């Protein structure tokens, strides 16, 4: 049971992750971009952030940097479908900046649950 913030500009993905995570017993909050996500992180405590990278307003890389600056203990999983206009793969960059695990889209729900459990288990 953990509080997890899901940041993704695609509502269906947020909805999917919410369902998957809630079925696993976690409580989920959603944000549609990095700015909203950071706002929520400042207002509330989350043990984990699952974020996309390519988003309007504030993209994921910057968001990760902010989270790592302000709350280094927060676990971060990055899920990305690649660059929006260019087929750039940001996952290694995200990892370098402090993401604990990265997944390319499309992901398998089971992988996410396993990853969340692993990260939170390690933390515990």
């Amino acid at each position, binding site marked *: 049971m953990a509080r997890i913030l899901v940041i993704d500009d695609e509502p269906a993905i947020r909805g999917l992750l919410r369902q*998957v995570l809630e079925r696993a017993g976690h409580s989920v909050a959603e944000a549609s971009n990095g700015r909203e996500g950071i706002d929520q992180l400042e207002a509330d405590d989350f043990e984990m952030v699952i974020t996309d990278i390519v988003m309007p307003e504030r993209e994921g890389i910057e968001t990760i940097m902010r989270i790592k600056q302000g709350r280094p203990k927060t676990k971060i999983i990055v899920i990305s479908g690649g660059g929006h*206009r*260019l087929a750039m793969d940001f996952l*290694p*960059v995200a990892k370098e900046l402090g993401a604990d695990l990265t997944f390319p889209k*499309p992901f398998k729900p089971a992988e996410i649950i396993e990853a969340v459990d692993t990260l939170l288990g390690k933390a515990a």
Partner: protein
Amino acid sequence: MDQQKESIVPQVRNSRARIDFIVAAVVTVVLYVVAAAFDMTERFLVWALNYEQFELDEVPFAFGLGALAFGWYSFRRWREYTEAERRTVETRHKLTREIDGRTAAETALTESEERYRRLVELSPEGIMVHVDGRIAFVNPAANRMLGAATPEALIGREIAPLVHPDDRAAARAQVRRVLNEGRADLRAEQVLIALDGREFTVETSWTPILHAGRPAVLKVFRDISARKQAEAALMQQKSLLESIIRSVPDAVLVAGMDGRITLSNGGVTAIFGYRPDEIIGQPTGLLTVGPGRINGNRKDGEPALAEPLSAEGAYRRKNGDVFPAETVRSPIRDAKGRPLGAITVIRDISERKRADQEKASLQEQMHQSQKLESLGTLAGGIAHDFNNLLAIINGYGELVINDLEAQHPVRKNVAEILAAGRRAEELVAQILAYSRNDRRELKPLQLDALLTEDLGMLRATLPATLEVKSDIAKNVPPVMADATQMHQVIMNLCVNAGHATGKSPGHLNLRLRARTLGGGRDKQLRPLLAEWPASLRRIDSIANGRGGRMWIGRLHAGRYGVITVQDTGSGMDFSTLQRVFDPFFTTKVVGDGTGLGLASVEGIVRGHDGAIVVETELGQGTRFDVFLPTEAPAPTLATTEDEQSYQGDERILLVDDDESLVQAISLGLGKFGYDVTAMTDGTEAMEAFRDTPNRWDLVVADHMMPGLTGVELAEQALGIRPDLPIILCTGLMDSATRDSALTVGVREFHLKPVLASDLAASVRRIFNAESVPAKGVA
């Protein structure tokens, strides 16, 4: 005349013979009469018949004997007379003829003298007679040439001063030979000096004659000054033409109407390899491929040398090489327009053709490369959205299927949806692999272990008729590669080999070797080691288009792991090979392949700084060699060791409208030791730079900024300091931006998001390159 005839001697002798004859006849008659008187006749007859009565009176006998003697004499004289008479008549006729002829000759002589006199007077040639070195006669032409008013001005003069001093000795020698040896065939050119001092060249002949009974020399001369001048001009023109022909780098040939070469210049030797002595006299056909290229042939088969020609054709060098050339032929005609032959200029255009072909090939490759790039960009562009959609479809699909009981009737349908979703995932993965930017984590990878692992899977996947053989070297150093992508490469190549073999039995060889490249010694790999744009493919046709060889990517000297996949399948012809790496090109039936298999192989191998060599021929099978560098390519992410080498103290102006990013990068670059001035407004940054352009050593600018774009800022800053290194960061690298940035003079590009370590690496690259003289310069 008649008096002359009367005095002729035979006439006199004839009249005396006549008198003698008459006198002798008269005496004979008288003697006979006296003898008769003495009745001697009868007696004589008796005596003549009867010797006993010989003693007769001797008087009548004596008279009779006398008459006989005179009769004989008279007869002789008569004969003499008639003979003389006949001769006289004959002689008279002869004389008459002789006298008539002599008269005619005298008349002719007179006329001839007159004619010769006129000839001499009117002759345009100078005629002069000199005796003992002095002029005895001159004709008006000689007079005129020598500038004398009258012949008297010359007659009596010494001849020597009229001859140019240079020619005097020779002239004296000639005159001596004429006089001493009687030679009449001597001719020479000499320069004469007129009385007014004018010099002129003459052609002179000398002939010995008698003049007033003394040996003299007849000198006939013709002014050839004009001819000499024309000759000199002609010689000059000829030597000019010759030097022009010699200096022409093209092959210049002159051929006669028989098609045989009469002149060849140095260009012929340089281009064809024939020395002039080897080619002169040879038919022009020696140089041509096929009949009548130089001469040309009209429809009637006659050489068309007389017709101008401008054409391209194939020619043959002495060593047998055939080469293309441009030919221009002009006929040569005599003054009356009759053809004498032709001059032909042959220009070797093999270099030009080669360059044209190379250019065409390069353009084609460029075009191809651009096409692929745009497809890649398109594919990469849709991948993000597509992955989101697939995440939703597959994710929710999984949720649904998990919620359904095992026997639920809908479950099968959802499973179909999920299966399609998984295939779509694979497709997107292929597209991303093809677009090369989907570079996953590159780690040292043992190819032998990877191939061994794949072999198991291949044996299970490929048809049983295909015998898979492997030869995997264990000594191959690890390559920097993404394992998943390498699996994809091997599987794609092997599955293709399986398709190429079809259902008939065949072999698939999978081989791994370590290979060290360097110096371009390997002819087969030369195209990959050459200075050839890495983005281009190169392809050669073999076996008359029944196959081909293709090189993709570029290799540098170094050590490589080489994966070889070779099949004994159907092989490909040249035109199939040309397209085989194109995305969406497939020879398989619908559903068997996506047309992205080899395209993604290319993308992945290029993404690993590797190269591919393909060799194929219809019916012979296909061989792919994949070269992967065993040394790490330029790191995209800094390691601790690298970070030390990224350190520096240059002053950097950093401009980005994203405040937090500017701060983060500024801090990051600060850690490497750089002195960073961070600004968030392009226009303000430009103003600051304009005020103190030398305050910074380098500018890092974001491209997409409100107000002033990065490229505009770069352009203005470089207008002030052309040597200023500028790094451009952009979230969107389209070719237009890239082109304009390159035109402006931006040194390096970075795709956002950008790391400070990447920037530091760029900064060092730029300044290290500046401090060390650039390779290949000078």
